[in-house]
């Protein structure tokens, strides 16, 4: 059967009981030479990023740029409203001054930054996403509960279902499974 329909695989998924085991397995897999890996955990596990070689998030730059746009937008708004569109002298005060523009400038910077952080985070993660191959893992429901998964993806040049499974089993995986894409 497998000769006629060649199923595409997402990769080999190994299940662990403990976050430390997961990090150790991740490190071992990386030392073995795997580069295309991901882990699935109920909470952010510290050390897994370096263990499986995930680069730093560029989110900070996005937030800095969008926050600056927010600052400019607020300054522009206060200036446009007070000086160009509706100039009105009140209490002999200037039509525009940084002093009274500071609160809107500050708040709008924060507002834009927050949206950038949240929307940027979801966009970088490709969320919302309806389907992902990892959902095919037989015990996926436990990932958001108490299970720790390490996936060696089929696109990895060194990927070999049997060998990957052997390596994971030697690192203490309680279950390994070839997951379809």
């Amino acid at each position: 059967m497998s000769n006629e329909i060649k199923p595409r695989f997402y990769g080999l998924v190994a299940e662990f009981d403990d976050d430390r085991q997961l990090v150790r397995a991740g490190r071992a897999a990386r030392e073995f030479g795997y580069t295309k890996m991901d882990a699935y955990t109920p909470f952010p596990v510290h050390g897994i990023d370096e263990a499986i070689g995930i680069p730093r998030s560029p989110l900070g730059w996005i937030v800095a740029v969008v926050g600056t746009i927010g600052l400019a937008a607020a300054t522009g708004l206060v200036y446009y409203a007070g000086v160009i569109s509706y100039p009105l002298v009140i209490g002999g005060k200037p039509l525009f001054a940084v002093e009274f523009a500071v609160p809107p400038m500050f708040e709008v910077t924060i507002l834009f930054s927050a949206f950038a952080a949240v929307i940027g985070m979801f966009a970088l993660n490709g969320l919302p996403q309806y389907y992902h191959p990892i959902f095919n893992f037989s015990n996926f429901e436990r990932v958001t509960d108490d299970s720790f998964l390490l996936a060696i993806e089929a696109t990895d040049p060194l990927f070999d279902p049997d060998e990957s499974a052997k390596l994971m089993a030697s690192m203490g995986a309680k279950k390994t499974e070839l997951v379809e894409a």
Partner: protein
Amino acid sequence: MANLIISEHDRQEVNPQLVLGNPTYHSITKQVSAIIEGPTPKKWWIAIGVTAMITGILGLMLSYLVARGIGVWGNNRPVYWGWDITNFVFWIGIGHAGTLISAILFLFRQKWRTSINRAAEAMTLFAVACAAIYPVFHTGRPWRAAYWLLPIPNTDLTMWQNFRSPLIWDVFAVSTYATVSALFWFVGLVPDLATIRDRATNKIRKMVYGALALGWRGSARNWRHYELAYLILAGISTPLVLSVHSVVSFDFATSVIPGWHTTIFPPYFVAGAIFSGFAMVMTLMIVARWALSLENLITIKHLENMNKVILATGTVVGYAYATEFFVAWYSGNPYERFTFLNRMFGPYWWAYWTMVSCNVISPQFFWFKKLRTSVPFMFVMSFFVNIGMWFERFVIIATSLHRDFLPSSWGYFTPSPVDMLTFFGTFGLFLTLFLLFIRFVPMIAISEVKGVVAAQNHAGHGHHELTESHK
């Protein structure tokens, strides 16, 4: 040299166990999810029945206000700011605890925040919703409030807000605060919504929580962006939460009214806001902890830490009262001096002394460990603090306005029944929203608590690890 002996007691003091009863990850998931998944308890129906009725009173009062005009409130010459702004500041102040817990304590790596941050953030959102009622409805025509409050180009007024006015700063500060708090809250919720999704046995729950979880799968690549987003949100929410009540205080401080025109207002208001917010978190958490048997997650240590924050901020508030008085005297300004003496001994003396006894005296009991770890005592104290903080706003607003520069225009403010019932009704709205939250949203940050448990377990095993690697 003397040997340093670290006892188990010292260890507990430095690094207290924040989740009791040796839980597993699964037991935490089960315990928190059970609140949502179990059958609706009868007491929940009774509670929400009562609070919904009180919310109904709010609806009636606001409809009456729109139909008749804002004359149904007690504000009148010379006290044009009455209960409306008092209640607005009261609710906004309560809303400060949530972001303080979720943002500032996060930056300070206070792990104890994880058991209470979700509920405190929810409480923030609901308190801000209650506060927002006042600026929107004091316009008398709430359907036009958007044009008046927000800089939206429109053909209704064909004019812009006056950005020299602190009132528009307030609109920016409060609306930003509400939005950012909601975003922060939602980001924190996503992994837990995924937990509920994956546990769901019925179809509707799976669909609703599945949609809200946005396909979260706990991938390490996702967590890395997620954690940075969380850190950034905490970083920008910290100055935000401090700015909100500072800007609220500008409404007063930038005026020339004696008793308002002081530079101490921003820090004094912020301390008061945190003080009242923590007291409200305390009130709600004690009830929730008891009703839902969460004693192992919200431990005495959590409550004690909150009491320490109440003690610290309450002391700052007391110090601010003293500074205000000293400066009023030291300034040599007769109007300032009169205003402060009038607060103490004038027609509103009862409000002033209620404020002082609730805000200055009651938190000082928390110097005693026995009292700050006694649940009934802190429950009572949290009420006192909230009463005191409401009176603080009332004292600031009413006593400064009712007797200003010209004795011929002096007066006295009495709230109308509509004022009172509207305020009563906001409590109904606040509690109704909180009850809905408890029933439908994981009220404890499941994934964050698991992180704490992981750290706790590893700390326990740390010694063995160390010896192993030395071999």
